[in-house]
Structure formats: C-alpha cells, structure tokens
C-alpha cells in the first residue's frame, strides 16, 4: 500500500512536486531563522562573557557597585589566596584575574616629547604565564601585525588605533593612567603587535598587556580589579552560573565593602535583561515563525485536498470506501511532509552553515555603537535545527489534509455522477 502511494506521488508530479516545494521552502526558512537567531544571540552573550563579564565574575562589593567606572582603587587584594580558594571550590570553572583600566596612550617623537595621543580602554590579562586568555580572546587570530606579548613590557594595541597614533610593532609608547592609590601612573610599553577583533568597542582604542606589567604600572601588586570565571564546557548556562554565585556569596558573606562578591553574567549591567530577552525572543521568534509557516503549509494541504475533489469523487464512485480514501490522503500528506521537511532541513542547514562559516559583515551599521555586539553576524547550527523544521513541515501538512479531507465524508454517492457530469 505504501509503495503504491509513493509510486502515485512520484508519477503524478502535480500531487507531489508543488506541495513538496512549498513545504521545503517553509522548512528551509524555519531552520535557517532558528540557527540565525541562536547564533546572533549566543555570539553576543559569549562575546560579552569573553571580553568583559566572564560567565561569572568576582569583585569587591564596592567595585561591583561602580563596576562600569573601573574603580581600581576598590580592587581585590591578596588575589593569589582568593584564586586558590576559587580553584579548589569550583574546579569546573577556569578562573583568571584581570585588570580593566582607562588611560591615555602617548607616543613620543625622537626627542621623547609627545608626538601623538589617544585615550584607550585597557586590559591586563595573563598572557605570558599561561595560554588560557590568549585562547579565550582568540588573540592569535585577531593579530594583524607583529607578535603576541612574549616578555615583560610588550603590549598590543587595536590595529586602527595604532594606525591613528602612527605607531608600528617595535615602537615604544607610554601609558598614563591612575594607580590603585589614586596617584599618577606612567609606564613605558613596547608595541609587540596590533589586533582587530571585529567588535567596534574593542577596535576603537584598546591596549592589552600582561597582567604583571599592568600590576606594576598601576601599583597593584597581588591585586586585580576582577577575577573572571569561565565554565569548562565553554558555554554559558544561566541557571548554573546563578547557583555558583549564590554558593560563593553565602560562603564569603560579610559586611565589609572590600569583601569579594560573585556575580553571574546575567547579574552584571544589562546582561540579565539580554539573557532573558535572548531566551524569550528566541522562543517567540521561532514560535511565531513556526506558526506562520504552519498556516502556509496547512493552506497548502487544504488546497491539495480541494484540488483533488474530482479524483476523490471517481474513487468513491468506483467503490472505494470513504475511510480508505481519507486514510490514503493522510498517508500521502505524511510522505509529502517528510519529503519536504527533509529537503527543507537540508537546504536550511546548508544556508545556516554558509552563514556560520562565512558570516555577514555588518560593521558598516555598527560604527559608533556602544554595545558589545559582533560586527559579523554568524548562525549557529544546534541539534534543534535538525528536527525543528519537521513541526511545521509534517504536522501542518497533515492537519491541512485532515481538515480538507473531512469533506470526503460529506459526499453522497447518489449525487456523485451528477457532480462528475458537471
């Protein structure tokens, strides 16, 4: 019976080609949209995590209150001991101390006087002691000229910023900032290389140097503004991160404003709203799209049923039972739904793979943006994409046929020949 129905579908192109094409187009769009939304939202969250928030972050309570001002005078002290505690208490996370700071980059002329200047946001990261931060920020890939910091005094500048300052790898420059005690910090660096991240805020004007150098420059020995934690799975899990911060904060709870406090990514700045929005938005957009595609495919199923009004009449006139005709049409819609969904899923995954691999450059639209968002939009293929298209693809087609097929039971054998004559 199944073989017979499939043969019928294959031989009668009018019964298979158009419905399968409609289903396939709908499923392609559903799969692609889902992968696109997942990719864009996930990238934005992970990017913020890698550059600023971590999956969780430890700061002093006082620092956390004004974290956006980078108040290094309120930084964590005795961080070696704190790091040991964090590593033994939470071995599923990777912990890295960081210092974020603001300052002025001053490039000297041959007489040692100011040739060019620019304000910068700085990161002091563990670049020489281990490879974790290098890999996390993908610095090797971001490198545009020169080399990564290898020894004390080496620093990276964002590529366009170095261009504006007129400085090349090997040249020296001076960082002017504030020490942890509020004094004036002046420290000479050597430009080891330039980097480009594809993130407007990072590429506008940034300096990245080894943590030890920044500690020396800002008089922050065994101190850091923050300790960022990253899940060893590589992905942010909001529930897990919130449980972790609750656990840490209950262990280190004191009234001292310089005691450490842990905040999950979603508890920092506007990231909570973004995480919530990304979860809800992703679900809503997917649902709305699936619903819209279901209507289209349902309509296609209805049209298919109506178009075959004459054929159904002949089959009933020839003695085929109404139940048999109804069941065979539903079985056919299942085959069409499956064929369309498989084709659509394959095509949708194909387009999503292209966007995942090559990305879409929107840097032109991001100029002057203050949000940390990727300038290249990429899709992300997840296991959900392999089955999500089957919901609108199969179910809607079948429901469409189920509804349109009810008409079979309203046909009266006595009137069939009259209808067929007409």
């Amino acid at each position, binding site marked *: 019976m199944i073989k017979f129905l499939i043969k019928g579908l294959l031989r009668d192109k009018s019964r298979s080609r158009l419905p399968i094409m409609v289903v396939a187009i709908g499923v392609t769009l559903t799969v692609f949209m889902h992968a696109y939304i997942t990719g864009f939202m996930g990238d934005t969250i992970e990017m913020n995590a890698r550059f600023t928030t971590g999956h969780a972050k430890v700061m002093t309570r006082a620092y956390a209150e004004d974290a956006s001002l980078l108040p290094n005078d309120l930084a964590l002290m005795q961080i070696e001991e704190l790091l040991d505690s964090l590593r033994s208490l939470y071995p599923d996370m990777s912990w890295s101390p960081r210092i974020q700071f603001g300052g002025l980059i001053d490039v*000297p002329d041959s007489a040692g*006087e100011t040739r060019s*200047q620019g304000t910068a946001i700085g990161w002091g990261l563990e670049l020489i002691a281990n490879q974790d931060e290098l890999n996390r920020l993908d610095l090797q890939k971001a490198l545009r000229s020169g080399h990564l910091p290898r020894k004390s005094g080496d620093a990276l500048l964002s590529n366009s910023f170095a261009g504006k300052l007129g400085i090349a790898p090997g040249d020296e420059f001076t960082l002017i900032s504030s*020490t942890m005690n509020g004094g*004036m910090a*002046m420290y000479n660096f050597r430009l080891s290389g330039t980097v480009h991240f594809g993130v407007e805020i990072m590429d506008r004007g940034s300096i990245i140097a080894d943590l030890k150098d920044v500690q020396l420059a800002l008089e922050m020995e065994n101190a850091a503004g923050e300790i960022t934690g990253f899940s060893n799975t590589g992905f942010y899990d909001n529930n897990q991160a919130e449980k972790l911060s609750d656990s840490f904060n209950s262990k280190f709870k004191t009234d001292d404003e310089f005691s450490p406090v842990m905040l999950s990514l979603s508890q920092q700045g506007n990231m909570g709203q973004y995480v919530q929005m990304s979860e809800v938005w992703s679900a809503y957009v997917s649902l709305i799209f699936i619903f819209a595609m279901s209507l289209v495919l349902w309509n296609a199923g209805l049209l298919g049923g109506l178009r075959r009004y004459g054929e159904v009449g002949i089959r009933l006139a020839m003695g085929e039972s109404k139940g048999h005709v109804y069941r065979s049409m539903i079985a056919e819609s299942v085959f069409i739904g499956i064929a369309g969904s498989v084709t659509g899923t394959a095509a949708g995954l194909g387009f999503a793979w292209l966007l995942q691999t090559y990305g879409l450059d929107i840097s032109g639209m991001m100029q002057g943006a203050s949000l940390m968002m990727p300038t290249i939009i990429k899709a992300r293929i997840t296991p959900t994409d392999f089955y999500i298209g089957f919901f609108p693809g199969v179910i809607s087609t079948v429901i469409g046929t189920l509804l349109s097929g009810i008409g079979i039971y309203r046909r009266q054998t006595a009137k069939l020949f009259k209808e067929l004559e007409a």
Partner: protein
Amino acid sequence: MIRKFTKSALLLLLLALAEIATAQDGAAILEKVDANMSSDNRIFESSMTIHTKRGSRTITSKSWSEGNNKSFTEYLSPAAEKGTKMLKLEKQLWIYSPSTDRTIQLSGHMLRQSVMGSDLSYEDMMDDRKLNEIYSSEIKGQEKIGDRNTFVLLLTAKVEDAAYYTQKIWVDAERFVPLKQELYAKSGKLLKRMEMSNVIQVQGRWFPATVIYKDMLKQGDGTEFKITSIKFNQTIPPHLFTKASLKQ
C-alpha cells in the same frame, strides 16, 4: 494717572540703581579678594592629603608661579611621586615622570582628570586668573561661618572658557579672603566644594593656608591642601619655566 506712572518709573529706576550698586559692590569685594589671592609671583611648599575609601596618603610639593600663565611644580614625596614635575605655560601643561623619563603634554579633556588622585583637576590647578577677570558678581546676602561674618557672592562667568559657569563664594567681610566656595556647572549641578581655614597674614595680605576640596562627583572624604610655606614677589629664574627644566 500721570502721578502713578511717575511713581512706578521712579521705583523701577531706584531698583535698577540698587541692582547696579549691588553689582558694583560685588565687583569691589571680588577685587579685594583678588588682591589677597593673586600676586605677580609666588613660591610655596604644600602638602596634599587625599582621603579615599581605603585610607589617606599625603603628597608634598614645591611650586613656583609667575602671573597667571606660568607655573612649575616639583613633587617631593612620597617616593612613587618624587621627581615628578609639572610645567604650565599659558594653556599648555607638561608632566615629566622620572620613572619613564618622558615628558607628556596634557590637553583637552585630560585636563579635567584628577591631579594625583585628588579632588583637584589639572584645570583647577591651571586656572590662576583673577576672579574679577572671569566672573561678574552679585551680593546675595551675609552669613556667618564660624565666628566670621561673610558676604555671600554669586559669581557668573563672563568669559567662554571658565571651568565653572557659576560660583557661590563666602568672603570674609573683614579680611576679604574666601572661606567657602561652591562651584557649579551651567546646569546648576554642584561640582565642587572648597572650605578654607587657617587664614594667615603673609607680606601684608591675608591668605587661607588650608583648603579642603571635595569633588561632589567622587567618593571619598575630599582632599586637604595645606600650604606649609609661601612667599610672594620673589625672584624666580626665567629658565625654570622652560621644558628643559623638567628633566633637570
């Protein structure tokens, strides 16, 4: 009818005259303040104690200044700041740091940054112009600060490049030195507050030897600026006000 109109006109005229007289009095008071606070040149040693959330630290320095446009400061302690020098010529500021052996020129919005983490900005430090040159003044009343009678003056900027659009200043009614100052932005927001004390007489002029600065936008308990010695109208070698002197 005509009598009523004449009365009103006379009243308005009197009010206008009173307003002019108040403004003139304000200007006269400000002139006396300038006579105390400004000089052709001066040399002073000072200590600046900065109170932060984590504690306090004191920085000592020696400054030489000539008129409104030239000044040179050398930091004497603590060790981390020792040897740092600043030179102001007209509207330009250079800083020399011995640890980097670099002379850096500060300009633009960097001049609004805090000096050594204190509640003073470079702009505050650089603006030595006479108050009468920058502001028009108006007497707002009289108040007592401690046991001293003061005139309360409202100053409004009459030049484009004033760091603060308005100031409220409490001037000692007898000695004509400011005892309190509030500095406001054009929006009316209070930006800084200064409280002067320990008024001393040096070479015939009154001078507040201690000033507590409080940047209202900053946390912490403010910065205490104390002049430990001051001399007016001294001979200062001209080469001091050159970039070459920064590295010496």
